[in-house]
Every structure is written in C-alpha cells, then in structure tokens.
C-alpha cells in the first residue's frame, strides 16, 4: 500500500473519530439498494396501473362505507331501537355448560374431592373470564344437564333453576357468589395477583341491582340464610321430582359444607394476607387497625 493511500485512510479515520456516533437517525441506505417503483409507459406497462377501467375505481375516489349515491342509505333507513342501551353498565357472565363441566371433571382437570370455584375452573385453562371486558364470572348453563353425574361442591356466579336441580340431584351443592372486579382480577389469575405482592382484597358486597339475586335462597345466593337454602333444596327436589340425597350422611359431608366467607376470595386464604411466591411464605397482618379493616366484626 502506498503512502498516499495511508494518508487518505488516516484522514478518513480522523474524520470518523470526530463524526457523531452512527445511530438510526443518521444512517442511510447503501447506494442502489432501494429501487423505486417504476410507472411503465410502454404498450402494456403504461396500461391502467391496477386501477381498473373507467369510473371511481380509476380515479381511486371510493365512496364511503354505506353510501348509496343519494339513496336513503340502508344503515340510516330504520328507526332507532335501544338494542344496546346501557351495555356499558350491564354485567356479562361468560357461560360454562354442565356438559363442559362434566368433561373437565372426567378428564381430571377439576378435583371432585375439593370445592370447585372460579379460580379452579380458570386454572384448567379451558374457561376464560376477562374482568376488563365487563365479565363477572361463570354462568353455569343447563346444556347437558341430563348427562351431568358428578357430585361436587361448586361456586359459580350465575346459575339457572335447572342447573341447580341437576347439581343437587347428584348429591352436590351449588352456591352463587358475587365477585367485584378487583377480587375477580385476583380470582381469575392468582399467580399474577400474588406476583404483585399486594394484600388479598376483601370481597365487596354485590351492587344494588344484584343484591336481590345473591340474597335469594332459591338462587342459592351466598348471602342467603342457610336454613332457607336447605328448605329451597327440598322444594326444588319436589318440583323436579327427584329424591334429595341426604348430604348429612355423606362421607364427604365436611367437603360439601365448605363455603367461602362473603369477604373471602380464595379458599384457605384470608383478606389482608400477602402471599410471597418467591419465598413460599404467607405474611399475615399484625396491626390491629389493619386486621379490623380486613375482618370487620
């Protein structure tokens, strides 16, 4: 290499040292790497350029959606109807059929010897509840009620009369319980909630328009009087014509009697506790004021 070449290299390197760092904002494509699209002008190259022949297609001034060139448009032709009135306030309960529930049990995705709640069903990964989409939990529907044979203690958020009858006919127990959105976030994905390292919230009471449902023993509401619930069990068995199995004599009586406290979100965990997944520890509040907040007597 000659001396002049060295000099050139040296000056180039010196220049490079003084120049700012190469960043996304000051780099340029290699010369010739980008090829601009050509608009052909020859016999076939300069034809229609994909815009079609004549009319608004060629001029590429497409009409707006629904416009009918002066007609009364179809989408404005009819009177208004309050189909979606108050949709932003209405609670949604994504359905889960009894057939699906039976399938989950048969495929060992749900344990029968433990109470089943929203958390257990969400953990199967086959049921999705999205609190941000105004979902408020499970609506257990009666599809496959005749095939349902499991004896379970289940807690759902909404259940019809047929569903209650189908569960109780097999000696099972069903409760309908309300979860406010904050508790629901914790209940649908406990792992994500525990990772946040915040105390387990206490479950709020249902809103005004749901309180009737959840205090009604006929709906097996979690706020209903247990005495009245057992009476309604008998009434329903007579209505649907099955013999009510005596759960008092059942070997799984303790499991069937297990219920959550109205303030409780998870079985075995109380509101106010913090679950540390990393150290596998549960932290319980000691302060009297905090205790009183989470467990008002």
């Amino acid at each position, binding site marked *: 290499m000659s001396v002049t070449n060295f000099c050139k290299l040296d000056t180039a390197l010196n220049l490079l040292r003084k120049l700012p760092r190469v960043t996304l904002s000051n780099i340029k494509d290699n010369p010739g790497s980008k090829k601009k699209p050509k608009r052909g002008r020859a016999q076939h190259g300069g034809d229609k350029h994909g815009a079609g022949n004549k009319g608004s297609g060629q001029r590429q001034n497409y009409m707006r959606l629904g416009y009918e060139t002066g007609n009364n448009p179809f989408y404005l032709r*009819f*009177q208004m109807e309050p189909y979606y009135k108050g949709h932003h306030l209405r609670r949604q309960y994504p359905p889960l059929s009894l057939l699906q529930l039976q399938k989950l049990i048969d495929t060992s995705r749900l344990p029968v010897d433990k109470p089943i709640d929203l958390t257990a069903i969400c953990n199967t990964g086959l049921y999705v509840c999205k609190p941000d989409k105004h979902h408020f939990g499970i609506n257990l529907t009666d599809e496959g009620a005749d095939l349902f044979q499991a004896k379970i203690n289940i807690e759902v958020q909404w259940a019809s009369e047929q569903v209650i009858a189908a569960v109780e006919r097999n000696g099972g127990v069903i409760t309908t319980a309300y979860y406010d959105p904050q508790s629901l976030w914790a209940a649908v994905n406990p792992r994500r909630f525990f990772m946040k390292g915040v105390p387990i919230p206490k479950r709020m009471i249902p809103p005004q328009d749901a309180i009737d449902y959840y205090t009604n023993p006929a709906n097996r509401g979690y706020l209903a009087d247990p005495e009245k619930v057992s009476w309604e069990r008998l009434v329903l068995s007579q209505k649907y014509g099955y013999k009510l199995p005596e759960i008092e004599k059942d070997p799984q009586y303790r499991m069937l009697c297990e219920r959550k406290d109205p303030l409780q979100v998870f079985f075995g965990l109380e509101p106010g506790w913090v679950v540390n997944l990393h150290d596998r520890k549960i932290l319980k509040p000691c302060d009297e004021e905090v205790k009183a907040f989470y467990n008002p007597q």
Partner: protein
Amino acid sequence: MLQTLLRVGRQLTTAVPYYASAAPTLLQCSKVFPGTCHNSMKFGSLCSTIAKQHNSLLFQPTNVPLCEPPTRTVTKFSLQKGKRKTVKAVVKRFFRLHWGGWIRTVAGRHKKMWKKSAKRRHRLKQHLLCNSTQSYLLDKMVTKFWRTPKYYVEDPYEPYHTREEHPIARRKPA
C-alpha cells in the same frame, strides 16, 4: 354612561360561559364596527342595540367551530390514536347476533297505522335479519368491540345467538 357600559359588560360576561373567553366576542364587535372605540359610549350603546336586535351575533363567534360537526361516515384513522371508529348510527339501529347475523326493525312501523291491516301491523312489530351483503357492510362499519359476543344473563336474544338447531349452520360438535 358608566351604567350602560357596565350593563353591556354584564351581558357579555353572561354570554361568556358557553365559549372560551370574552375576547373573541369583543374583537368581533370591533371588527364589525371598525370606527368604534372600546371606551366610548358609542360602542356601549351600539353593542347593547346589537345585543337586543341580533343576539346571535354577539353570542356566536363565526369561523370558529364550537364542536365537531356530526358525521355518519366511518372514521378509519382517529385524530388522537389513529384508530378506527364505530358508526354510531349503525349501533343505534342494528343488533349483532353471536353467529354474525344482524337484526333490524321495519321501516315505517309507527306510521299510518290506521290504514294497515292487523296482520301487517303484527309483521311490523317483528325484527328482521339483514342479508349477507348488508351484514358484511355493517361488520365493517363497527369496531371489534361490537363484533365480540356479549354474555348477558336473562338476555331476550339468547336463543338467537347460536344456530345449533339447523343441521347446516350448527357448529357443535366441531
């Protein structure tokens, strides 16, 4: 003089709450009557006469859009986030079933009832299904929010959301 001025001032301030400030209104006055001065009595008296005669002149600043004009076209890119927007007129008139069909009411269902037969009046009360082309159009005019199923309990449209009873349209078993 002072009293008239004060009165005018009060009128102006009462007019203000609808708009951002009193400044454009005053400016407009001076534009309309370039010879007038703010402090002179002339201005005050003129202003009050104008206020009496053409209330709207004082109240409405021209060339300044107060709110967005109503549009029924679909917004493909919103100003703030560049998102698509729903045509609200569609959601107010149509209802989407889970399987993708849209239902609507009948045009003229409350008009000239006296000359319509009982049978026809009954038909007017029904809700109708839109055809495939119309449903496709309506699907494009609303956002994903309206196309996702809504799981309400005690929903009167619940039996119509699936078509399991029709052998061709059924989805289950898959």
